[in-house]
C-alpha cells in the first residue's frame, strides 16, 4: 500500500520520541496531524485554538519564556512543545513567541494519549516525573557489559562470589573446623557469633598457630583465629580489593552486605581474574621498581579510560578506577622515595585533594595533594619531608599528573604542615571565608588520605567537620560559591543556550555540568558534617538527612552520572582520534535524545541551585 504523506511520516520517524513508534503507527500518524503557520514575532502556542495540543516544529524557531520573560527554552526544527498535554507542567515556560517564520505540526493531546497508551517505549519520553526521566537517561547509558576484558577495573567484588559463605560457630573446636574445611575443600572459614562475623581461620593459621605451635586440636578455634578482620563491602571494586590485599599482605577478605557476610574473596580468585586481563595496571604499579616504569605504565591511562568508556562502564566506576590507579602510583612513588630516604622520622599522611580525593578523576588531571605531619615533628625533620614531597610531586608530574597551576601540592611548604598548623588553616578559612579560601575549597575541603597514618587525617577531618557542621555563615559563603557555575539552559540548533539568551558554540561540560553538582554536594557535606568525599556518596548521605530530599538526591546522582558519562564519552572519542582530551563539547556531537536528557539534567541542577540560593541567602547575615 502506498503511504500517503510520506514526507511528514519520515520527518517524524527519524526523531525521538516518534522513532519509538511502530511502522504501522508511523504510517497512520500524519493523517492525525494538523499544520499551522506562525509568522515571525507571533505568539506561541498559536492563538485562537481550542483544546490542548502537542506542537512539533517542522521549520522555524520558538522561544519559551517564564513569567518574568526570562528565556527558558528555545525550540528549533524537530523541537516539541508538550506543555498542554502534560498532567504536571515540568517546564517553567508560561509564554512563547515564534522568532522565525515557523511551520508547526499539531497533534491533539488525545491522539498523543492513544499513542502513549499503546506504546510503552514512546510513553517513557513523556513522563511527567523528572525522577523517571533521569532514570531513563541513565538507562540509555548502560549497554550490555558482558565479557568485558577490563572487568577487573570496574567490576565489583560481588561478581566474583560464586559460593554461599561457609561459616561455623566460633565456639567450635579447631578439629571440627579442620574437618569441615577438608570436606568442603576450602582454604578458609568465617567464624560467627550470634550471626555476626567475629573471626576467620585459614589453612595457614591451622599450620602455624595450631600444629607448629603445638596447640591441641580440641582447643576452641577462637584461640587461634584472626579476630581483627578487614572486610570489604560487596560493591567494592575488584581493583580496590586487590589493593587492600597487597597493602595488608592478606590473602582472604570477607565480603559483606551491610553487616551481613555474603562471601569470601581470595587472592587466588583475583589471580584467576588477572590471567584473563592484560591491563592489570594495579599489580604492575605495585611491582614497578623505577620511576621510568611507573611513567610508562601511567602513559597507558588515557588508553585505559578510552577502553573503559568503550566498554560502557559507568562514569562513577571509571572515576573510581582511575583514581585508584593514581592512588597506587602515588603510594608506589612514596615507597620508592623511602627506599632511598629511609622511613619517615615521625608519622605523616599523604593526602590527595580535588577530583582524586573525590574518586572522580579522569586520566591525567592536575595533581592536587598535601602532606599532613604529626605534631611530633621537629625542625630537623623538615628536610626529610621536603625531599619526600619533592620526589613524589616530581614523580607524579613525570607520570603525566602535571604540577598544580595553583601550587596546591605537598612540594609547596605551605601545604606540608603539622596537624596543628592544618587545623589553624582550616579555622581561618571557616571563620573568614575569603575568596582565597573559597578558591581552595574544591581542593582542600575534598581531602582523602592515600598513604601513611590515616588516623592523622581522621583527627583533622573531625576537627574540620565539627567547625562547619551547622555553621550558617560559613555554609552560606560556600553556597554562594556553589552558585558561580550555572548550567546552560539547553541547545538550539548548533548552539548552546545560556542564561539571558546568549549563544555559545561549545560549552565546558566540566564547569557547567559536573562542578555545579560537586559544589552542591560539598555544601551539604560540610553543613551536615558528613565524612564522605565522593560526590555521589555525599549526595546519598545528605539525602538521609533533612537537608536534601530522597528524590532530589537521586535526581542529582543520576544527573551527575549522565553528564559525567557524556564527558567521558567525549574524551574517549578524542583519545580515540589521537587528540588530547578536553572538556569542551559542541552541540553537533549530541543526538536529539542526548540533548533532551542533558537538558533534564541541567534543569535538576538549576532547581537545586535555586533552592540553595533561597535557603542560604539569609544565612550570611544571621
Amino acid at each position: 500500500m502506498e503511504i500517503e504523506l510520506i514526507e511528514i511520516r519520515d520527518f517524524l520517524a527519524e526523531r525521538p520520541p516518534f522513532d519509538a513508534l511502530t511502522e504501522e503507527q508511523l504510517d497512520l500518524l500524519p493523517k492525525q496531524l494538523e499544520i499551522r503557520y506562525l509568522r515571525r514575532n507571533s505568539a506561541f502556542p498559536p492563538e485562537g485554538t481550542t483544546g490542548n495540543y502537542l506542537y512539533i516544529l517542522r521549520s522555524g524557531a520558538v522561544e519559551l519564556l517564564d513569567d518574568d520573560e526570562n528565556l527558558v527554552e528555545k525550540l528549533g526544527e524537530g523541537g516539541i512543545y508538550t506543555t498542554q498535554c502534560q498532567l504536571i507542567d515540568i517546564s517553567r515556560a508560561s509564554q512563547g513567541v515564534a522568532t522565525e517564520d515557523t511551520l508547526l505540526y499539531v497533534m491533539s493531546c488525545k491522539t498523543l494519549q492513544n499513542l502513549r497508551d499503546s506504546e510503552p517505549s514512546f510513553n517513557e519520553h513523556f513522563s511527567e516525573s523528572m525522577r523517571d526521566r533521569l532514570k531513563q537517561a541513565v538507562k540509555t547509558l548502560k549497554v550490555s557489559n558482558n565479557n568485558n576484558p577490563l572487568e577487573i577495573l570496574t567490576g565489583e567484588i560481588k561478581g566474583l562470589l560464586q559460593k554461599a559463605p561457609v561459616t561455623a560457630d566460633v565456639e567450635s573446636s579447631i578439629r571440627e573446623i579442620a574437618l569441615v574445611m577438608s570436606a568442603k575443600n576450602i582454604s578458609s572459614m568465617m567464624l560467627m557469633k550470634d550471626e555476626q562475623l567475629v573471626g576467620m581461620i585459614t589453612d595457614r593459621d591451622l599450620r602455624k598457630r595450631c600444629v607448629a605451635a603445638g596447640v591441641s586440636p580440641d582447643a576452641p578455634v577462637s584461640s587461634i583465629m584472626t579476630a581483627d578482620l578487614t572486610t570489604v563491602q560487596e560493591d567494592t571494586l575488584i581493583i580496590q580489593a586487590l589493593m587492600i590485599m597487597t597493602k595488608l599482605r592478606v590473602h582472604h577478605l570477607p565480603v559483606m552486605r551491610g553487616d551481613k557476610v555474603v562471601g569470601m574473596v581470595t587472592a587466588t580468585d583475583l589471580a584467576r581474574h588477572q590471567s584473563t586481563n592484560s591491563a592489570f595496571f594495579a599489580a604492575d604499579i605495585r611491582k614497578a621498581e623505577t620511576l621510568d616504569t611507573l611513567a610508562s605504565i601511567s602513559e597507558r591511562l588515557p588508553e585505559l579510560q578510552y577502553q573503559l568508556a568503550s566498554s560502557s562502564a559507568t562514569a562513577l566506576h571509571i572515576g573510581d578506577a582511575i583514581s585508584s590507579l593514581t592512588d597506587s602510583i602515588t603510594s608506589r612513588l612514596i615507597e620508592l622515595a623511602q627506599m632511598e630516604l629511609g622511613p619517615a622520622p615521625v608519622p605523616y599522611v599523604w593526602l590527595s585533594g580535588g577530583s582524586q580525593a573525590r574518586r572522580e578523576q579522569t586520566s591525567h588531571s592536575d595533581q592536587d595533594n598535601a602532606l599532613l605531619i604529626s605534631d611530633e615533628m621537629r625542625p630537623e625533620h623538615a628536610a626529610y619531608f621536603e625531599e619526600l614531597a619533592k620526589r613524589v610531586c616530581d614523580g607524579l608530574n613525570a607520570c603525566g599528573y602535571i604540577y598544580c597551576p595553583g601550587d596546591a601540592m605537598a612540594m609547596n611548604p605551605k601545604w606540608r604542615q603539622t596537624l596543628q598548623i592544618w587545623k589553624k588553616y582550616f579555622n581561618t578559612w571557616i571563620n573568614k571565608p575569603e575568596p582565597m579560601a573559597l578558591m581552595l575549597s574544591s581542593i582542600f575541603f575534598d581531602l582523602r588520605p592515600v598513604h601513611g597514618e590515616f588516623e592523622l587525617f581522621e583527627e583533622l577531618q573531625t576537627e574540620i567537620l565539627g567547625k562547619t557542621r551547622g555553621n550558617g555563615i560559613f555554609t552560606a559563603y560556600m553556597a554562594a560559591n556553589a552558585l558561580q557555575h550555572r548550567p546552560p539552559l539547553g541547545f538550539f540548533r548548533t548552539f548552546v543556550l545560556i542564561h539571558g539568551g546568549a549563544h555559545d558554540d561549545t560549552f565546558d561540560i566540566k564547569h557547567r555540568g559536573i562542578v555545579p553538582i560537586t559544589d552542591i554536594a560539598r555544601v551539604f557535606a560540610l553543613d551536615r558534617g558528613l565524612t564522605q568525599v565522593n560526590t555521589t556518596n555525599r549526595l546519598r548521605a545528605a539525602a538521609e538527612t533533612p537537608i536534601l530530599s530522597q528524590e532530589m538526591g537521586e535526581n542529582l546522582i543520576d544527573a551527575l552520572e549522565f553528564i559525567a558519562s557524556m564527558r567521558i564519552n567525549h574524551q574517549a572519542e578524542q583519545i580515540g582520534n589521537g587528540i588530547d582530551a578536553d572538556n569542551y563539547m559542541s552541540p553537533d556531537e549530541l543526538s536529539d535524545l542526548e540533548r533532551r536528557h542533558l537538558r533534564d539534567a541541567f534543569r535538576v541542577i538549576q532547581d537545586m541551585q535555586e533552592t540553595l540560593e533561597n535557603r542560604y541567602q539569609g544565612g550570611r547575615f544571621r
Partner: protein
Amino acid sequence: MLDRFLSKESQRKRALKKVGDGVLHDYLSTPMVNKNTVCEDLIIVSLDLETTGLDPKKDKILSYGFVEVSHMTVRLAHSSHQLISIEEEIPEESAVIHQITDDQAATGIPLEEAMPILLRQLAGKVMLVHYASIEQNFLDAACRKLYGAPFVIPIIDTLVLARRLFERRNHTFQPGNLRLFNLRPQYNLPNYKAHNALSDAVATAELFLAMATDMFPNPSQCQLRRFITQ
C-alpha cells in the same frame, strides 16, 4: 467566452440552468461562499492534479490529491490521494514528472467515479491551487464531457498571488521564481522531497497560510476577496 465577464455566482446560476440532474447539479446548487468571509472562517480545498500533459482536450487526469484548510489550519485528516485509471499508455515525457507508472495507474478508479468525490468535496468551498489553469481547465473539461455543463468555483492561485507580490514590490523575477518549490523557502517552509498530487496540495496549502499571514498580519483584514484570482 462571455462567462469571463460574469461573476462566479452568475456563472454558477447560468450553468445550473443547463445541467441535468446528477452530481454536478447538486454541486452547482450549493451557494458560493461570500467574498467578504474572513480567512479564519473559510473552508478551502487545496487541490493538485497530475495529468498526462497540458492540453485538457486530449490529455488525461492521472491522479488527484487534496487537503482541506479551515481556521487557517491544514487538516490532514481531511486529505486524500487517488490514482485515476486511463485507457491509453502514459506518455513517457509526463511520467518523468509525476512518476506514475502504467501499472500504478491501472490500480486507480475511473474518472467517472473520481469526479463525484471531488465535486462533493469542493461544493460551497474555495479551491486553492498553484497555477490554476491546469486544475480549472481539466476539471471543466471533465464536467463538460461527463455532465454537459461547465465547472465553476472561486479560486485562490498562489502563483498569481506571488506574481502580484513581485510586481507590487517592483522586483524583477524569472518564471522559475514563481514555482511552488522556489517560493516556499522565502517563507521558511521546508523543502519537501517527495512529489505527488497530495504532497503538492499540502505544500500549496502551507504556502497559502504563509502568504496570507504575511500579507495580512491582522486576521480581520484577511478576507477572501483579497485573494480571489479567478
